[in-house]
């Protein structure tokens, strides 16, 4: 521990105090720049953010550029191996009907993302709020909520998906609903456990003693502490939901042709595994790249939103590995 680092900790503390004293808009400005610098300091997180941005751009704007290339069949160019010899649209090869794998990847990615993102957001918000409420109040509210979670968790979500498929049309919105319902218990239980533990803490007792209403205690004192955990769960879950959607599509009870998602592409490519491996390999790689960069970005985000861990990101890059953990938090807190 050197004097300069002590000083640094002190500086950052005064900086926080200064910004706290500034007017509202100036403070949010300072907050934004700090987020940017924090992100740019972490090479891995920056790379993950760039990759995710590219995936989102390719699946939204990219779709406008390719026109009808994803459905245009070219029977003279079936099962073209990937390479640069056949024009840019066959860079990743073509499938058994001579359709460009690259173009289909873009369209399929759009479908996959438009299922996964809403499903995660819905289950995060509903499950998180419900769980904090149940854990804070305990008693019958907690019991009923936990039993509901047990029911949903032990219910075969495949059955739910099939029922929805047969009764309603197998549209993306219905798959979003199935996945969101199936994942609510995960957030419900995590938030419940944390909030049940937090309600016995001194700062919650203090807030209660001052007459804060239970809703305000949950929003102002419980939610900020639970949020990092919930966000971590949500990112692991974003991967889970994307994989669940692709598994459902792979099994034939998710997205239906002529629509296409990454999971469906793997299923369609599976039968040509020995003759055209690229039709099954690239969609799977696309899933892995997207989910891994989402997880990387989220683990950075968790560090950045956790007051007890944020100091790790503020350190110069070279020193981060070697320093002993417990020194700086005592200075900054």
């Amino acid at each position: 521990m050197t004097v300069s680092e002590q000083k640094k900790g002190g500086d950052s503390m005064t900086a926080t105090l200064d910004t706290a004293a500034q007017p509202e808009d100036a403070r949010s400005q300072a907050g934004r720049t700090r987020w940017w610098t924090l992100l740019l300091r972490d090479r891995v997180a920056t790379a993950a953010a760039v990759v995710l941005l590219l995936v989102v751009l390719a699946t939204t704007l990219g779709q406008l550029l390719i026109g009808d290339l994803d459905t245009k069949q070219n029977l003279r160019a079936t099962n073209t191996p990937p390479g640069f010899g056949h024009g840019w649209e066959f860079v990743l090869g073509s499938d058994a009907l001579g359709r460009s794998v690259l173009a289909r990847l873009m369209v399929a990615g759009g479908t996959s993302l438009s299922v996964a993102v809403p499903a995660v957001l819905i289950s995060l918000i509903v499950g998180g709020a419900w769980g904090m409420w149940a854990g804070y109040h305990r008693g019958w509210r907690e019991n009923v909520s936990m039993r509901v979670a047990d029911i949903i968790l032990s219910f075969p979500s495949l059955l739910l998906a099939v029922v929805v498929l047969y009764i309603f049309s197998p549209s993306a919105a219905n798959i979003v609903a199935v996945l969101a319902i199936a994942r609510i218990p995960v957030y419900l239980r995590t938030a419940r456990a944390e909030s049940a533990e937090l309600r016995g803490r001194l700062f919650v007792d203090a807030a209660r003693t001052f007459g804060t209403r239970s809703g305000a205690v949950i929003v102002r004192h419980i939610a900020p502490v639970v949020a990092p955990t919930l966000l971590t769960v949500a990112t692991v879950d974003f991967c889970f939901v994307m994989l669940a959607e692709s598994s459902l599509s792979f099994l034939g009870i998710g997205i239906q042709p002529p629509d296409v998602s990454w999971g469906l592409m793997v299923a369609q490519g599976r039968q040509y595994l020995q003759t055209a491996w690229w039709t099954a390999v690239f969609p799977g790689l696309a899933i892995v790249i997207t989910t891994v960069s989402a997880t990387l970005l989220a683990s950075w985000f968790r560090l950045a939103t956790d007051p007890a861990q944020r100091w790790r990101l503020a350190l110069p890059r070279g020193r981060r590995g070697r320093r002993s953990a417990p020194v700086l938090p005592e200075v900054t807190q």
Partner: protein
Amino acid sequence: MLTFVRRRIVSSAVPLVVVILGVFCLARLTGDPAKLYLPLSATPQMREDFLARNGFDKPLIEQLWDYLEGLFTLDFGESLRTGQDAAGMALRAFPATLQLAGATMLLAIVGAVLIGSWAAYKPNSLADRLSGLLSMAAASMPDFWFAIMGVLVFAVTLGWLPTSGVVGGPEVWVLPLLTLLIRPFGVLVQVVRGAMVSALSAPYVKVARSKGASEPRVVFGHALRNAAPPVLTVAGDLTVGLVNGAVVVETIFGWPGIGKLMIDSILQRDFAVLQAAVLITAVTIFALNILVDLCHALLDSRVRQAVTA
């Protein structure tokens, strides 16, 4: 503790009943079995005979009553597909899934605790970053894709392992086990690492070190015990996911487990088998949830007090 178990069982009985009723109703919403089992040219008379033979012509409430009556004598009816006893089919398929899931979770938990603790011991070290990256990749792996790649490389190209089936030596276990293992393992390593990082920077670890406890004792005795509850919760959920959804692995590798049985009976409208399979799975999951709650109480005295009070 016994009162706790008893109370937990009683309160779990209600959801169990809800699941049984829900499956009964939802399965019947998926469509008419007569359309699937009779030829397209079937006359209305043939259709009525088929429905009457299988008891589908009665009102829904009477079918439900028959079903519930059968439950008490452990009679789940007969399969529409094979004519066999439904409970027997489900019970024969269950051990295959249980073995696979049990072996997977055992390997995943032991491996994740070791690697996660190692990574958390020195945050941001090379070991931490490497295991973090690898576990993230593992947790984000589409299992069906991983299985297909495994088959492509090890079965088709290299010829070391069989493509599917359960007959043979230990080599038939390798690909299904790895496929099922990869995601729970990746998730658990991250959870163990996260919980251990905060546990190892807690004041009681400093106290343990200052009173001269050895490093293994500090890590596995003091820190791990406090890091265990979130790991336990996630591991329980992952196991439920395994029991519930080994479908993909069982379909790809032809593993005759409960997941394959379930999806086959859904697609074939084989209601009796579906109900038996779901019931067995639901009972197992409830037992597992109670076990996880008990372990929480054993590990954390604060929870224990809340439970016994």
